[in-house]
């Protein structure tokens, strides 16, 4: 289970632009560095991050080797109706992590 920090409002007014800020613990091993035995360490990075708001894709990003460990990503979306934001991170070595945020929209 990866460790994550998620910052997002739990309530918002309809039509309000909300910011979601995420950090996930991940080594983001580039695939270019030699290990202590001199052999290149295999790449182990998060390749894709996405966020679905009530099933609809509202944000996605592709990450590459140049991204530092424990990647931080922030993005905005418009609060349309109450529901859930499902964040998911997918990467090498079958890495997969999902977090769900509940959002209640008023007005």
């Amino acid at each position, binding site marked *: 289970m990866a460790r994550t*920090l998620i*910052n997002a409002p739990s309530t918002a007014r309809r039509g309000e632009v909300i910011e979601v800020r995420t*950090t996930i613990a991940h080594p983001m091993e580039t695939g270019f560095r030699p290990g202590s035995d001199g052999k290149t360490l295999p790449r182990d990075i998060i390749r894709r991050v996405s966020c679905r708001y009530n099933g609809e894709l509202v944000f996605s990003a592709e990450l590459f080797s140049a991204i530092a460990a424990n990647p931080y990503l922030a993005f905005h979306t418009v609060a349309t109706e109450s529901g859930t934001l499902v964040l998911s991170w997918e990467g090498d070595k079958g890495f997969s992590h999902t977090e769900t945020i509940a959002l209640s929209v008023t007005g």
Partner: protein
Amino acid sequence: MKIPGRALLLALAVLATGSGASAQTPAGGDSRRSGFEFMGTSTQAMQKDDALNPAMLWVKDGESLWAQPAGQSGKACVACHAAASSSMRGVAARYPAFDERLSRPLTLGQRINQCRQHHQQAATLRAESQQLLSLEAYVALQSRDLPLAPPADARLAPFRKQGEQRFLQRMGQLNLSCAQCHDQNAGGRLGGSLIPQAHPTGYPVYRLEWQALGSLQRRVRGCMSGVRAEPYAYDAQELVELELYLTARARGMAMETPGVRP
């Protein structure tokens, strides 16, 4: 900075020509400055905002470890100490402190391991392990913004003196002492990086170079291999003594844990 060798040669050139900038001299009486003030604005922003600070990943871990039973006693930290937010407030600011049982000073991390061994009857955590750093960061977070308050315990004095001597003593193939950079040339540059005054206000810190959280001992060991000295082993008495001196030197400065450093 992955090439400390080259950076140090540059620093040597600076020392040799005597053109190193002197320590920052602000208007106030206290010329001590936290490493925070030597960082770029983006790194400062990272430390100031808990949502941006990656060290909070470890803090969050520490928070769950605090409540998780360990060892044969089946007790969690919280069983004896109750909520860390009240019981641990100001504790990290007093470490290293003198331990009666061992008759020597212990760092916060060593204290946590003593607790695990004697009260929880659990295996000690390895130095720099994620679990130990997480607990340390969580405990130290409770002292954030409090002034560093090293105890006035007379039994610590000889150890602190030893630490001071070690701070002033030249070491390694480059034959440099801690004081030559951090007292005499603080504010100057070592290659591309500003030399801070070496006040341990934010430990354990998330260091961008490490891309992870690390202790003051890791930082000091890094400096030692930088001057091509043989670093003391983790938890060696020498490192604890240095930490004692450094905290006394930074007495009264505000704790920033969990800090972010370049």
